[in-house]
């Protein structure tokens, strides 16, 4: 007799009760909480309505020390924003102008954004790490006349580049502690100027707000180009407001959102706009103080990149390992139980990674097994969840209802870990060009291993990248084309207007409203999207660096020892190479090897190969540090036309990736050790 069933039920309800609610219930919850979620036409309107509705509630909190934060209320922020907008207008900013905004996370950043939106202009944001070449390109390409700079250092850099920036007229310095050079305005002066004008009855800002059209840009974001110059992504007010309305989730003005991502990144911006739409408070934290801030702020919601979850995971595991042996055992028992419990729960709710269709009889046959396991585990899971896992959750503040991961692929073991300890991680998928969310898991649709179903009003197509055939939704294919792999195309209100002053590229990217993402994906049998990789060659490292593999591969293939090769490293810390060696060349140089396997076991041969790679991709040859190959593996069979190669002898990367997943996995699992 299981006395503890109820006990477990509690625990269960703790984190999963929401998952278990039906769609209908979600609608009910939404309607009660949604009362206070703003549905605005443009961002200026959103800011205005937020000030009216949430007035004295804190909109942003700025950290001064661990237990001392400065709140800024919605009404204050809006008022200051109006002053700034008026100041900007008097500096000559016209409606639909592009205003530069160079800097990182700080309150003055969001205030500047308020000012820019409220005077009907669009901002062009970039972080402090922008290079001089990018600065010149962006300012000239976007036609920026007025710009904000965060620090004195940035200000000096721009002034020294002034010769190359003919159109730039005004610079406004954000940091209140920095000293402004001559000709540079301080933010507080512009604010004061605006405040005086408004006192005198200036209402130009209100006219500007009324004049904003849904199709106007709110921002022009330059993404680091994979080849050549940065591209300016034009995002409209509708793009962003559709996101604040369509994102799943039921938050209200009691929510505390901890912010750590770079503020100018579209992922962080959408979260901040979303937070404003329900009246929550955004607490600006930083990577260095995150652990402490999580405990003090007890966030209910937060968004971050995979790297942060990896770090948090490391820290938790380190904490467990440092604890008393009895506690370690308890943790492992708790984790094991949770795993068993959740996997049965996912089975019942049909929320597991369903890559293949499951016939009803198979499901019926498995049902008793899961039911028995679920019942057996339930009481113990409940107890351990309360006694052990709750402690782990308290390490993250204890109030997290959900977290969002985006901006890169979340490693599956990290994903499972957090969901099993009861911190629901909702992985999302998107890109700057889609402002950014295309799909995201919700608490009701938490399928680990996928990026959830597309958000409201958004359509997804899967298209064969080589032939252009429609794979999903395609009625002539089994299951309408689910489990067919191909390129993801997106259509919806969040799709950008285009690339600024680059119609050619815009036409290549968007056709008939469908945006080609360049990512490979598949629709699972429970209608979630799973990302498989890139179909474009570009490799994005976990550090965010873009690596073009082709030049490196071409360079490597010039070596006498290398027949064919492919560079890998998507979402990894460094790049590696898969190499088809020229056996004869090694034999010529006196190495005894009959097969490639022999070669791989021969330390001398490996040393030769390593030196060869190092020589070919050295900095002297023009390769950047992140383009250095840290490790490699030899492949035994050559790439063949029709299999790994196209008719034009181009590598089919996704084919090779699916053929050698274990080789690639092993390369990166122990690659760190060899990194010297």
């Amino acid at each position, binding site marked *: 007799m299981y006395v503890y069933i109820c006990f477990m039920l509690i625990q269960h309800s703790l984190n999963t009760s929401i998952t278990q609610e039906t769609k209908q219930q979600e609608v009910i919850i939404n309607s009660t909480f949604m009362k206070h979620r703003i549905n605005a036409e443009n961002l200026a309107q959103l800011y205005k309505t937020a000030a009216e509705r949430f007035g004295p509630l804190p909109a942003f909190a700025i950290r001064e020390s661990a237990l001392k934060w400065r709140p800024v209320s919605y009404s204050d922020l809006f008022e200051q924003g109006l002053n700034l907008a008026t100041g900007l207008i008097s500096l000559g900013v016209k409606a639909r102008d592009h205003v530069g905004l160079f800097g990182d996370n700080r309150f003055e950043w969001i205030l500047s954004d308020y000012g820019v939106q409220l005077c009907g202009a669009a901002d062009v944001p970039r972080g402090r790490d922008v290079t001089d070449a990018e600065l010149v390109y962006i300012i000239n390409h976007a036609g920026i006349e007025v710009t904000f700079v965060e620090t004195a250092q940035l200000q000096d850099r721009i002034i020294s580049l002034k010769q190359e920036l003919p159109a730039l007229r005004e610079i406004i310095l954000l940091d209140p502690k920095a000293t402004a050079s001559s000709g540079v305005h301080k933010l507080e002066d512009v604010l004061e100027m605006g405040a005086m004008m408004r006192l005198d009855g200036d209402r130009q800002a209100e006219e500007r707000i009324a004049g904003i059209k849904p199709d106007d840009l709110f921002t022009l974001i330059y993404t680091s180009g994979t080849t050549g110059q940065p591209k300016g992504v034009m995002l409209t007010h509708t793009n962003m407001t559709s996101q604040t309305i369509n994102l799943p989730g039921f938050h209200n003005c009691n929510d*505390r959102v901890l912010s750590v991502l770079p503020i100018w990144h579209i992922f962080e911006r959408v979260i901040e706009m979303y937070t404003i739409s329900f009246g929550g408070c955004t607490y600006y934290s930083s990577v260095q103080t995150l652990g402490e801030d999580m405990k003090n702020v007890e966030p209910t919601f937060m968004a971050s990149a995979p790297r942060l979850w990896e770090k948090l995971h490391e820290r938790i595991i380190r904490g467990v390992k440092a604890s008393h042996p009895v506690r370690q055992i308890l943790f492992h028992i708790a984790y094991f139980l949770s795993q068993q419990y959740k996997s049965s729960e996912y089975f019942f709710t049909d929320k597991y990674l369903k890559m293949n269709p499951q016939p009803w009889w198979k499901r019926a046959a498995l049902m008793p097994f899961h039911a028995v396991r679920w019942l057996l585990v339930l009481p113990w899971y409940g107890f351990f969840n309360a*006694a052990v896992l709750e402690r782990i959750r308290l390490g993250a503040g204890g*109030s997290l209802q959900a977290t969002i991961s985006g901006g890169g692929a979340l490693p599956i073991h990290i994903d499972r870990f957090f969901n099993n300890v009861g911190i629901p991680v909702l992985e999302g998928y998107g890109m700057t060009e889609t402002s950014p969310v295309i799909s995201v898991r919700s608490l009701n649709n938490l399928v680990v291993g996928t990026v959830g179903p597309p958000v409201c009003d958004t359509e997804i197509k899967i298209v064969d990248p080589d032939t252009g055939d429609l794979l999903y939704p395609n009625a002539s294919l089994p299951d309408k084309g689910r489990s067919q792999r191909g390129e993801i195309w997106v259509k919806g209100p969040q799709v950008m207007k285009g690339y600024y002053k680059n119609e050619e590229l815009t036409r290549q990217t968007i056709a008939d409203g469908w945006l080609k993402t360049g990512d490979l994906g598949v629709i699972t049998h429970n209608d979630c999207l799973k990302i498989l990789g890139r179909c474009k060659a570009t490799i994005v490292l976990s550090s965010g660096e873009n690596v073009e593999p082709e030049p490196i591969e071409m360079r490597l293939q010039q070596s006498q020892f290398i027949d064919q090769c492919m560079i890998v490293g998507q979402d990894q810390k460094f790049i590696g190479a898969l190499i088809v060696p020229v056996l004869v060349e090694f034999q010529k140089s006196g190495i005894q090897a009959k097969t490639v396997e022999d070669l791989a076991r021969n330390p001398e041969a490996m040393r030769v190969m390593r030196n060869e790679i190092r020589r070919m991709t050295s900095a002297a040859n023009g390769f950047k540090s992140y383009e250095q190959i840290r490790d490699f593996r030899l492949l035994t069979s050559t790439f063949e036309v029709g299999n790994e190669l196209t008719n034009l002898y181009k590598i089919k990367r996704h084919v090779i990736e699916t053929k050698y997943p274990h080789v690639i996995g092993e390369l990166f699992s122990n690659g760190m050790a060899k990194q010297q």
Partner: protein
Amino acid sequence: MEFNTQLLYAHDQILLAVMIFVIMLGMGASLTPDDFRAVIRKPRGVLIGFVSQFGIMPFLAFGLSIVLGLHPAFAIALILIGSLPGGTTSNMFTYFSRGSVALSISMTTASTLLALLMMPVILQVYTGIFTDQLTANMQATGAESTFVIPTGNIISSLILVLLPVAMGMILRRKSPEWAKTAEDTAGFVGILVILYLLLTAFTRHGKLFLQTPVEVYIGAVGIGLAGFLLGYWFSRLFGMYPIFQRAISLETGIQNGPVAFAVILLSFTEPVQSQMLWLAILYSTFIVISSSVITLYYRKKGRFDWDIYKNTQIHNRLFGKDYVTHYPEGFLPPRLVNDPSQGTIPVQKRNQ
């Protein structure tokens, strides 16, 4: 119904004694002198809880015994259970039901001390008719003696139970690390032993479950449920804020089972001892289930007011204690806006 077999063998009794020791030690390890000071600083919630624990609960137990027509031994056990102090289990349930853990701890602390005085008094007041019945039964079978409640023994066994609590508090002072481990172990041991007792009852006295009259089950389950219900509404009557209502409700319904075992084992003898123990075991079993269900319910129901409580608390922590959180008009239900006990957020109350 009479028990013709002994419910517990000697080794079971030793096991039970060890469990009581471990649990009470763990309870002590979770208490600090600050908890006692907190009771004196904010006596209101504790006072309401006190009335609800030592006033309402024993009366409920008495009423249930009469209405259900329980056998006198069961009736005495039920009243004994009704007059028990709160245990640490209620603190944990309160935590998960989004109630005020601070109040729950204060109530546990206060009631554990006051039980020394209150339990004997309550037993004297309510058990009169049942002891008379017992005496009548015994004399009917030819015995000369009369049944009396062993008040002296009860007090001394209570003192005996409080010893490990004191030891736990000392342990906490000396080594917080060990205290934490003791606290964790206690929860686990409690569960294991109750499971063991049930299992042995099943295997050795399987028929017992069938023999036990249904009204005994109703009494064992009902006393907890009625405690939750009355605790909740009684504190509402005094305008307590919902997080305190949940704490008082759970504290009233969940009693300190191990104390019941100790008192029964140390102070009562056969023929009533086994029956009383049986009821205590049934109560301990069912209370875990019913409080889990209640906690689940409270957790859902209390989500909104807890979020508000938490948010204002964190605002005061980060923005200074004078910061006042103003919610938009119509966001807070009237009950939360006008709650006279907004004292949860004392400064805010002052400013409004």
